[in-house]
Each structure stands twice: as structure tokens, then as C-alpha cells.
């Protein structure tokens, strides 16, 4: 276990944890065992044979949120030789645990669902629709975002884009995160075949996690798409270039940066540019962009009620800053942040709504101009 990653694990084990404040699981569980340095020390001792994979050790490894925030906050940041990334060795450790059949029951349940239904959440595939721009709705999107299809149709109709979608299978993100690498690879291979068959000019995905997976992990498995896939925020920013709105109207909304988008893909400016172009009154969190904290688990499973605290803290921050709603750009964030305390909207929902309003305003103005012309 860990072989090539041991130098990184050693560096983390003997570090003074500048990433501690951002390792939110430490505070949600009020337990130092979940700190990066302690995780690393534990893995080092397991690799040395000084400790075993006990339930407590497995809990530490599977409670890591793998949001990449430790890498962003690392004390070695900027080192020309690179710097440690907790998520990398945590994934290897999970793979080791899973290979021994010791993964937690909730993780094994997700694996089982894939085996029986082909979907991590046990939901059936949906009929694809062909088009020039294809939206890939990954398993998590289909599970938690009820309006993804109608929003996509509305947006592309307004923009006059020939659009379709692919809503089958799984990118393998959840399986890979939980250490079921072979299952993840099999799922990815199947979806790769479906994408090839769709023959799209442009591939768009509303899930940062699936986008990250396809861009970063698939190539290591020899799965080349032949066409770049981008997150919906990037695609929409390109579509809306030059369409800036001067007025700001409606609710004050706080945009929450998903880990996989802001840290994994460095997409921070684009979603804000889109929202501003559509006249949204944006409120910034104190910690945003690459520093935005994770607000729950990123592998679609209920790891325990402690994760609720993370979402609760983020909602409280939004409220204190005067936001009247939160915009999310990840289906996992939609699941985690949805509460009765503040409305939560998907990025696609807000864009669809604003584009519709803008179109209605334009039509009204045209009608009024037309009547004026007729009168004169």
C-alpha cells in the first residue's frame, strides 16, 4: 500500500497542519484523529505493519471528504517538486481497504447498487436525445437534480442551440472515491462507449465531479473522449460572452464553489461571470473560490450525521452575509445544502430562469416599440 506516495505521507505526518482549519471533518467530529497529519501518521503505521485496519482506522480513512482543500492550503504549496495531496493517498488507502472486503457497509451498499442496476443510486437510465451540444447528466445529477432536463432544454432553446443529453450509466466517480477502482473503471468504460456513440460536437456536464473524473482519471485508464468536455458554467460563459447586464435585480444570491470545480478544475470566475451577465446580485462568502469548504460527502453516501454540520455552517454564513438564496453548481451540493432555512437553486435553474426573464423583457420591449411605431 502507498508505495510511491510514502514520501508525501511522511511529509504530512510530520507537518504542522496549516490545512487544519479547512479539514472540516476535524471540527464536525471534534476529533484530532481526522486531521491530515494524524491520518498520514496512521497510514504510515499501517504501512509499517505497526497497526491494523481496525474499524476506527477505516472510519478515519472513509470520513475524509477528499475535497482537495488540504492540497490548496498546504504548507509546501508552490514547491517546484510538488506538494502532498491528502486525497491521493486516501484513495489508495480506501482501495486497500476495499480490496480486503473491509469497506464500510454504506460504501458496499453503493457498490452493490451499481452491480445490480448499473447506477450508484439504483435509478434507471433515461432515453438519450441527440444534438450538437450534449449535456451529460451523470448519476448524481439524475439522483438529486429534478429539473436538470427542463432547465437544459429551456436554456438551449433560448440560446438557439441544437442540444441533446446523455443520461445513462456513471462516470465512476463515486466508485473510484470509495476505493472500488475496478468497478469504477468498468462503469467509465461503458459510459465512454455511450459518449462515443452520441457523436456530439460539444460535451457539457453540470456535475463538476464527473467533469473532473473524465478530464483527470479517464485518460489514465486509456479512455480518450476525442472532444473536450466542459462544465456547464464554462460552456455558458462562452455562450453569453458580451451579453453583460447592467442592472442587478432579484434576490441576493451566494454562489457556493464546488470543490471539484474550483479546486479540481480551477473554474472560479466563469460561474460568477455568467451570473453577473444575467443580472444576479451576488454575495461572496468569506471563504470562496479555491478556499471554499466542502459542505458534505462527495461520493453520494451518507457517511454519518456529522456532515450535516458542514452544510449548516455554510448556510449560516450565507444568511449572515445577507444572502437570500444559495446557488450550487454540483448535484452533491444541492443534496447537502437543501434545507428549509434558505432557498437553494442549481446553477442551471438560475440561468434558465434569468434567460427566460430576459427574453420576456426583450419581447415586451419589442412589442411596446412595435405599438409605438404603429401609433406614429
Amino acid at each position: 500500500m502507498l508505495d510511491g506516495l510514502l514520501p508525501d505521507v511522511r511529509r504530512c505526518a510530520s507537518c504542522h497542519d496549516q490545512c487544519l482549519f479547512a479539514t472540516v471533518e476535524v471540527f464536525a467530529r471534534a476529533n484530532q484523529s481526522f486531521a491530515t497529519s494524524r491520518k498520514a501518521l496512521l497510514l504510515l503505521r499501517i504501512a509499517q505493519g505497526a497497526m491494523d485496519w481496525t474499524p476506527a482506522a477505516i472510519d478515519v480513512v472513509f470520513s475524509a471528504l477528499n475535497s482537495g482543500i488540504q492540497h490548496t492550503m498546504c504548507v509546501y504549496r508552490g514547491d517546484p517538486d510538488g506538494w502532498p495531496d491528502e486525497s491521493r493517498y486516501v484513495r489508495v488507502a480506501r482501495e486497500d481497504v476495499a480490496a480486503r472486503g473491509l469497506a464500510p457497509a454504506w460504501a458496499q451498499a453503493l457498490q452493490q447498487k451499481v452491480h445490480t442496476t448499473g447506477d450508484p443510486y439504483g435509478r434507471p437510465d433515461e432515453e438519450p436525445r441527440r444534438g450538437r451540444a450534449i449535456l451529460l447528466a451523470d448519476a448524481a445529477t439524475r439522483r438529486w437534480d429534478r429539473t436538470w432536463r427542463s432547465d437544459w432544454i429551456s436554456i438551449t432553446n433560448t440560446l438557439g442551440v441544437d442540444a441533446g443529453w446523455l443520461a445513462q450509466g456513471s462516470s465512476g466517480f463515486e466508485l473510484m472515491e470509495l476505493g472500488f477502482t475496478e468497478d469504477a473503471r468498468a462503469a467509465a468504460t461503458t459510459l465512454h462507449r455511450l459518449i462515443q456513440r452520441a457523436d456530439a460536437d460539444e460535451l457539457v456536464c453540470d456535475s463538476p465531479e464527473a467533469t473532473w473524473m473524465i478530464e483527470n482519471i479517464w485518460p489514465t485508464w486509456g479512455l480518450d473522449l476525442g472532444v473536450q468536455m466542459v462544465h456547464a458554467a464554462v460552456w455558458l460563459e462562452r455562450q453569453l460572452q458580451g451579453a453583460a447586464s447592467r442592472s442587478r435585480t432579484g434576490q441576493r444570491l451566494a454562489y457556493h464553489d464546488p470543490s471539484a470545480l474550483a479546486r479540481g478544475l480551477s473554474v472560479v470566475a466563469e460561474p460568477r461571470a455568467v451570473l453577473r451577465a444575467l443580472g444576479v446580485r451576488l454575495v461572496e462568502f468569506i471563504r470562496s473560490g479555491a478556499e471554499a469548504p466542502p459542505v458534505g460527502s462527495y461520493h453520494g453516501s451518507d457517511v454519518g450525521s456529522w456532515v450535516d454540520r458542514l452544510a449548516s455552517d455554510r448556510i449560516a454564513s450565507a444568511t449572515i452575509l445577507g444572502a437570500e438564496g444559495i446557488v450550487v453548481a454540483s448535484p452533491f451540493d444541492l443534496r447537502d445544502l437543501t434545507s428549509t432555512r434558505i432557498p437553494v437553486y442549481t446553477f442551471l435553474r438560475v440561468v434558465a430562469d434569468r434567460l427566460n426573464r430576459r427574453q420576456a423583457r426583450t419581447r415586451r420591449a419589442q412589442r411596446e416599440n412595435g405599438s409605438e411605431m404603429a401609433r406614429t
Partner: protein
Amino acid sequence: MTPVGRVRVVASFTRASQPVHTSIDPVDLLAYSHDVFPLALKAAGAGLPAAQPDVIAYPRTTDEVQRIVRAAQRSGLPIVPYGGGSGIVGGALPVRGGVVIEMKALAGLMELDTVSGLATFGAGTNGQRLEDTLNERGFTSGHYPQSLRSSTLGGWIAHRATGTASTRYGGIEHLVAGLDVVLPSGDLLRLSAQPRTAAGIDLRQLFLGAEGTMGVVVAATLRVSELPESRRWTAISIPSFADGLAIVRLIVRSGLRPAVVRMYDALESAHRFAPAGVATGHCVLLLSSEGDRELVRWQARRFERIARAAGGRIEPPELAELWWASRFDTPALLRTLGEPTGIADALEVAAPWSRLVTVYDAMSDALTSSLDRGLGSTAVYGHTSHAYPDGANLYMIFHGHAQAESDVSDLYWRAVGAALRACAESGGTISHHHGIGIGKARWLELEYGTAGLNLLRALQAAVDPRRQFNPGKLGDTADA
């Protein structure tokens, strides 16, 4: 302690109708076997625990802390409060085992008095999270230690900490207005937030720097400030460290109040700022001014005028902004510690202005000659980062290599001992803001003399007759 003994202790915590969460799992015991004392970090890199607690207790309320303390007292076990484990002198290491009290559940903003500028937080609140919470509400603590992201409010109090902007906002002893402390008896002592008091000795001071030996701080009220309207950086280069310190002294003595003051010696300046174009051999001084926009502009101009008159050269403010943006990226000490025979540490001391340069020279010489007895590359450098009208601190940083891995510990203690003796003999204090812990315990007598150390021990004995609270710390040299 035997496993049976541990189980008995845990049972004593859990007898009440609402049991306190505890753990004797090896995974948890390992997690609390460390802080960032350099020799503990070296052990961690080798996969070894530095100290071994017997039980970890996870209280969620003050009442639970009281119950843990009373039960631990009955069992005779040591009690070690634990915040972020970020202390560099081993103050949180359970060197004699016992019950580690994990404080992180006692966290968060409890009350904010916006009229008085007073904010009460649980002692387990992480520093950066405390600051973010205040920033969201338009306030700042003004307390930004290098460990901000990993330390806790309780840890700041235990070590009598100070932050990088202390010249404007003060150290933790100036920021703490009120305290809630669970005493060794299990009683809760509430010291309300007051602007000042002459009700005898200020008992708050008894717990500032006590390293958990006088009780468990469970909450504190801080004096907080409105977020500054403006911040402006000034960067100055000067041919000598002594001349640079003179500029800092003139600025502070003239009544100006910079927030950040960082005066680097030539070696550290070269390391940090030569790539940005500062002439080799020159020393760099960084100053920040923050607050009212007009005042900030005026103060920055005064800094420049004083510096120029003293022979300083004004450098682009980007030098300072560069430091501010990367102030948490501090891998240099860790890199050396990560080498099998490497040792490194940052000793923070202080002295009056009249003796500061003497202390710097004496410590530099002591460290250099101690480390030269080792092998491989050696570096000794330093800076001042907290200035007062009557003096300033010195951060003396050293890197060295022992001849063999088995000699690392000896070389470390020899270097630290030589440096701290040199400091004390030259008229400085051996700790400015890291505390004593085990790292400086054997030299505390240099600070207080026998009479002072006896008084300190008598105070500890009066408060904690069985010396169960964080034994081995604050002058208790049995483990050093």
C-alpha cells in the same frame, strides 16, 4: 496504564446518566500523541508516537468538562487539555499519559456585543474559523499568529500567544477580557469581561500562559475591532539589521502604531527577498498600517520619512504583499526536520531595545558554535516581528545536522540550551509567545531564578495540590 486501568477510568466518566464520549482506541490515542514540538515532528516522520495518552475524553459542554476533571481527580490521572496540537514547545504532549481532554466541541461564537466590541467564543474554536466568523460580522480579532489555521483560542491563552499584527492589536493578554475556567477542583470560575479591574490581582492573568496547569479554559471573551477600512504596506531596505531595528524603535517610540512589523536580518532577507530584487546583504523591513483610510495614508508617509532619515531605502510595497500572501507557506523548518539527521527550530525571545542587538548577536554566536559541532549545512538567521515602545521580540531560526540520527536529540538540546542561556545572560526573556512546555522547561530558572520558580510551583501546588494538570510543563523538568 494497563488496558484494565483505562477501562476503569472510562467507566468512571460514563456512569452518569448522560455519559461523556471517550475513547481508548489506538487510532485516537495515536492522534493525541503529538503536537508540533520539533522532536515530536521528527518522531511522526518516522511513524512513531511522541507521547502516549491513556484515555481521550470528548466533552461537549462545560458541565462535561467539570465531570471529566472530577473523575480524573478521583483516579489520580494527569489531565491534558488539547486544542489544535499546534504548540511548538510540546505544551500539549501528554508526557505522563493520562486523560487528554479534546476541546474542539466547545467551539463557536457564543455572544457578540457589537456595542462594546466583545466576542465570546468556546475555547476549542479554531483560530481561522474564529477570525472568519468575526469577519462575516464586520469585526476582526486582530490576532493572526503563524499558527492561526491550526491553533485554538484555548491554545492561544495557554501559551500567552501573540499574532503578526500585535503591534497594533496587542497580544492575547491584551485581547482577553473575560474567561471561564474549570479549576482543578472541578468548580467553574467565571471572570467577566471588564475593560479593567483593580479588584486585587487580576485572576485572568493566572491562566494566560499557564499551559493548562491551572485549570481548563472553556470559554473566553475577546476584545474585537471593526474590520479596518484600509490596509497599506511599506517595504524598506537597510544595510544593517541594527539600523533596521533602530528604525522600528523610532517608529514605535514616536507613537505611530503599525500593525505588522517584520525586520529581517541579512540572511533571511536574502532568502525571502533577493528573488524580488533586494540587494544581497541588505535587510528588509515590512510595515503595515491599517484602520481609517486617511490615518493609514498619513502613517505610511511617516514610516517612509523616518526610514529615509535613518538611511533606509523605500522598496516596492509588493515585497510586503508577497509576504502577506504567502505567510502560511512555511516549509523551511519542516524540510530540515524531514532529513534523517536534520534539526531545526524557531526560538522566539524578547529584550528591551537597549539590549536587543546584544541578544541577537549572542544567540547567533551560541547557535552557530553549537551547530558547527554537527555535520552538514547549518544556518542561523532571525527577524523581529513584534515591537513595543520599550523593546521587541527576536525570532532566532536555526537549521543544523547531527553526525548521526542517534545524535539528533542531543544536538537539538545543546543548541537550544546554548541559545537560551545566551539570551538570558544578555538580558532577554527566553520566551516571547510560544510558552515553555517541555522545550524550554529546563531553562525557566534562568528567567525567574530560584525564588521565582519556587513561587510558581507554590502557586501551582495551591491550585492543583496533586499536580495532575498538564504535569511536566511550565518549569516541571522531570520529563525534559
